[in-house]
């Protein structure tokens, strides 16, 4: 590969390969459906839009997760932050529902950030504890049963309705994406985030208030999880126990498949978008194929390993 024909930086290569892999999934899925049912639902815009609408929730969670991973931390409190936001938003109801949901996310993010940045507890364990606390609070709040409260009309229309034939959830995801992309590439805060991920001590010596930036990152992740919870409650018209459990590992996988270094400091937002689309399409192709849960898990794991073997290999530590 000459530098003239393909002048790719090392951050762009994963995005290109992941995008190519999406094409492979689409082609393979279409060949399968054509051979078996004589139709090609994967190529119909309606079907694709519907899949992307479901993917929007994962996409919003992954956007927040990416920012935390970029500063070399991780947020394991996403599942119950999401569920708590959804449950509180539906039980408050009225015009305050959405602000309350986002506020829950902000509050959890703030606690996470203070624990990680000021107490220096490893984020892996602190956010795990916060997740357990949120779960405990919600179990106490709902009595362990499915909450009887319903999503407000605004939540439903944001998550489930369409404007000009395009699902509203996609507009929300797009807005979040634009905000995050601008934040990462066009603001000083974005530069600080990458700097902290590369070497926090160096960023600190360069005059960055690294602890405040860390708190801000966790707050962004918390708010993103809260927003996803509010939308998901709107989509399914109610909140339910364990609604966030299916979003933690896929969001980390989407970020990493998109080329973001799990050790922080490197990665582009476009990659995360591509990673989310890849996971959503992979899931939908597997469900078209009637793949049992066992096969899905195996394929899911193998795809992550395969993608990372292609472009995610670290360097050997030799000094």
């Amino acid at each position, binding site marked *: 590969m000459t530098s003239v024909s393909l002048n790719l930086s090392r951050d762009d290569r994963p995005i290109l390969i992941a995008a190519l892999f999406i094409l492979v999934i689409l082609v393979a899925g279409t060949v399968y459906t054509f051979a078996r049912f004589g139709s090609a639902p994967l190529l119909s815009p309606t079907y694709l839009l519907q899949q992307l609408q479901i993917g929007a929730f994962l996409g919003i969670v992954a956007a927040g997760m990416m920012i935390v991973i970029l500063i070399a931390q991780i947020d394991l409190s996403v599942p119950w932050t999401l569920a708590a936001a959804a449950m509180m938003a539906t039980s408050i109801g009225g015009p305050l529902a959405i602000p309350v949901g986002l506020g829950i996310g902000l509050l959890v993010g703030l606690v996470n950030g203070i624990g990680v940045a000021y107490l220096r507890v490893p984020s892996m364990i602190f956010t795990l504890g916060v997740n357990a606390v949120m779960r*405990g609070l919600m179990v106490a709040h709902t009595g362990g049963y499915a909450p009887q409260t319903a999503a407000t009309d605004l939540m439903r229309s944001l998550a489930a309705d369409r404007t000009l034939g395009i699902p509203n959830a996609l507009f929300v995801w797009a807005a979040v994406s634009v905000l995050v992309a601008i934040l990462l590439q066009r603001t000083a805060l974005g530069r600080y985030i990458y700097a902290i991920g590369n070497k926090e001590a160096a960023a600190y010596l360069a005059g960055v208030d690294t602890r405040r930036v860390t708190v801000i990152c966790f707050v962004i992740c918390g708010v993103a999880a809260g927003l996803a919870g509010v939308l998901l409650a709107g989509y399914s018209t109610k909140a339910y126990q364990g609604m966030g459990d299916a979003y933690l*590992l896929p969001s980390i996988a989407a970020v990493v498949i998109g080329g973001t270094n799990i050790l922080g400091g490197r990665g582009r937002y476009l990659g995360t978008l591509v990673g989310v689309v890849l996971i959503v399409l992979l899931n939908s192709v597997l469900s078209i194929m009637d793949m049992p849960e066992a096969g899905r898990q195996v394929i899911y794991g193998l795809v992550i390993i395969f993608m990372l073997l292609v472009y995610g290999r670290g360097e050997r530590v030799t000094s």
Partner: protein
Amino acid sequence: MLDDLAIRVRQNVGIVTAVLLFCILYVLYNLAHPKGFSSAVLVQNSDEIFALAMLAMAQTVPVLASGLDLSVGAVMTMVGCFASYLLTGTAAGAPLHLDIFGLHLFLGSFPGGISGILLGIVVCLAIGAAAGFVNGCVVVYGRIQPIIATLATGAVYIGIALFLRPTPGGKIDEDLNWALTNSLGDFAQTVHIFDDGAAGWFAPLAWIPVPFVLLVLIALLVWMPFRRSVLGRAVYAVGSAEGAAYMSGLPIDRAKIAAFTLAGFFAGCGGLFLAIQTSSGNADIPQAGAYTLNSIASVVIGGTSLLGGTGSAIGSIFGAMILRVISFFFRIFDIAPLLQPLFEGLILLAAVSIGALGVLRVRNTLELFR
């Protein structure tokens, strides 16, 4: 002499705190329990502790090498599902089939009786170790970050477990279940040794729970020799400074593979026991996730640094026991079941936050970033 002791205590302050905390909590628990300090309570508690203690040990080894193994719960679940096929204990042996992609393959039959059970246990532990070995190879030769590599292999192992047991089921030999989940006296009676446990010299030992003995044996016969071996020391060295370990000519790759293999073996022990205890195989994904996360919590409470290089699997065992004893307390202090998850979370947060208060003493902020 006293100076030496003081230095040793200071070096191991994490594990010493964990041991003291556990002793205090457990004595309090037994004092508050109506049947405290009895063999029955001890047996019940060690049954409930064993699987998590094994997973905590499993998690410790990769963490010492500054990796993290997110697949320990999945390996445990997978080994448990295998055990529910291999340890049925029917005298005639169990036929093994493999139904995949519409094919119906007959794999031969598994021997029955005592030899079949012993072989089944060995096979189950080997499967656990093999799963760990695969993790190690993906991390070392694939050069993928451990946290994300084991996330992916964990999904694969859960997939295999679901393939084996789409719905909970299977069976474990009743005698095996009875012998391993009760006291030494019951064990001797079931396997007919020491005059069925009636031998005079054996009586003072008969109250000890079998899982407790197994735990001590595994710690003494597997963990201690490993820690003192070249590979074990290399694991610690890799965790504290990989570059320096490389420059010193330590077998880094083999140490990492050994760390993950040992983790798989320990997780396999946990899965095997869980299957024996519940007499069935169950591909329970939430349970696998909960065990993985609790194993990380146990490691931290047991005084092992998540950055690697310091700590010990023994500490993690105490970490796991502390976590479990806290939940025992809920049973005797009449705390509403609905509030229990909240208290568990708060106690975990409080424990790690108190442990982190050392940051307030740091004079140079730069020391925080390592």
